[in-house]
């Protein structure tokens, strides 16, 4: 064993660490950890986030698009090409929120190790959700590029899509973290994926319009966040409608804030006894 120097234990004047709520240093450390781990996985993540929308576009575009050429005033490829952005944002935020959170909490005990250091649950959850939201913002663009290859025209409005993806991803990542904190086992996720996530993304006007669905389905769509994401994405690509779009942003903001606080509360109950 090597000898340890003594001087490093001397108190360093003027170096007292700042301690308050939501410290950037604590959040930054966790973001740095995520980025470092991600550098090992970016290839597989990138692969699946490009291949998946390609398959969706091929399947729906050619399969379904052969039957219908125009939907709700759009070319079908435009309709699906934009809808798939929202699904990519949803999947790339809610599923890592569910699975990686559960694994880090339950099996790797990563959160226990972090919380022994000067970081609290609020900072930890904020950092984890922030990271997934950033990822969702970036990877939500993959289907758009694929859709452009399929014939979607570029538009200036597309430049705001990463922000829409970030905002939506923040809410859904926090939703995933909340469920991962409540769930006793990974099997429990099945209840949520089949009863919440699947219906959410189907009634959100991603692949087909919802006018033909029963009235209650469109009511559900109005209050569910993904619908507002889909609408925002379409408006960003085909032309903003300021009034409606502000409402969409508002709903997504409220959802993100609500889920963020909920995730902090539930994960705190799990990690601190």
């Amino acid at each position, binding site marked *: *064993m*090597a*000898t*340890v*120097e*003594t001087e*490093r*234990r001397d108190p360093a004047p003027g*170096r007292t*660490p*700042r*301690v308050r709520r939501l410290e950037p*240093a*604590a959040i*930054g*450390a*966790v973001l*740095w*950890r995520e980025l*470092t*781990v991600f550098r*090992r996985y970016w290839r597989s993540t990138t692969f699946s986030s490009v291949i998946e929308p390609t398959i969706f576009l091929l399947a729906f575009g050619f399969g379904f698009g052969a039957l219908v050429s125009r939907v709700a005033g759009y070319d079908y490829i435009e309709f699906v090409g934009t809808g798939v952005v929202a699904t990519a944002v949803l999947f790339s935020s809610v599923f890592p929120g569910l699975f990686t959170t559960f694994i880090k909490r339950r099996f*790797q*005990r*990563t959160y*226990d*190790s*972090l*919380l*022994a*250091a*000067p*970081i*609290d649950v609020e900072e930890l959850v904020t950092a984890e959700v922030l990271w997934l939201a950033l990822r969702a913002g970036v990877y939500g663009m993959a289907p758009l590029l694929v859709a452009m290859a399929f014939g979607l025209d570029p538009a200036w409005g597309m430049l705001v899509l990463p922000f829409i993806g970030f905002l939506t991803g923040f809410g859904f990542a926090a939703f995933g973290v909340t469920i991962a904190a409540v769930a006793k086992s990974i099997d429990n996720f099945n209840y949520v994926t089949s009863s919440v996530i699947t219906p959410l993304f189907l009634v959100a006007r991603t692949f087909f319009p919802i006018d033909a669905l029963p009235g209650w389905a469109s009511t559900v769509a109005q209050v569910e966040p993904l619908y507002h994401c889909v609408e925002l994405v379409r408006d960003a690509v085909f032309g903003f409608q300021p009034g409606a779009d502000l409402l969409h942003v508002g709903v997504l903001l409220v959802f993100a804030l609500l889920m963020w606080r909920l995730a902090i509360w539930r994960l705190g109950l799990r*990690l*601190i*006894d």
Partner: protein
Amino acid sequence: MRRPAITLRGVHKRYGEITAVAGLDLDVPAGTCLGLLGPNGAGKSTTMRMLTAQTIADSGEIEVLGHRLPRESKQARTRCGVVPQIDNLDFELTVRQNLAVFARLYRVPKAERAAAVDRALETANLTTRADSVADELSGGMRRRLLVARGLVHGPELLLLDEPTVGLDPQVRSELWTLVDELRSEGVTILMSTHYIEEAERLADEVAIMNEGQIVARGRPQDLVAQHVGREVMEIYGPAAELLEAERHATGEGFATRRTGPVLAILGAERSNGALPDGYRRPASLEDVFVVLTGQEVE
């Protein structure tokens, strides 16, 4: 006198029907190594978790490095290093990256971070494995990395929770050397353990914990003198004979304990031929442990 690094007063913690910590009072003087010795389930780990506010006490007062817990726990944690019982390394990250995450968490200034990580690597003798992924390390190396991670910011107080549990003897003695070096540098250490030898070797003082309370506290040799005397007489033989010898010894006013086929008579130095013949040996901390906790040593 310096203020204690850790103070616990009347601390209670219950989990439903189970009381993990039942009115714990404990001081850890600054600059010393205290061994928290107790059988499994005595409440050692709960106590350790309370010191980082990962477990919140139901009642009682806890102070760490002058900070009141749980309110000022984050301040206290910046000056503490923690080595957990469970291996919770980031197995996907390299040794260096594992340390770097914690250097950031512990607010080591950017300019000093690389040096701090190098120093921790050196302390734990892991410099040559700096770029190995943690998953590829042997059990002993992983444990050393856990210690290095708790030291990366040069803490004033080190909390070691069963630091050598499940390690082979050689790795264990390596870790003991490391802990001993830290102690000689003046780092305050609180170490929970259920290995008697570990406590005897490393700790200035030992606190024996049983059923959520401290049942004895002092320097190992004082505890031995106080609770079991200088010598122990061990008698081997068939059960019936031992039973007879035990009755005889207790009749003469000696305390005894049974460990499988062995009867141990405590304080044997006081006997004037009144005890049956057996093997005399010096009393040890192990005897104290067994007498006070009623539990056998692993």
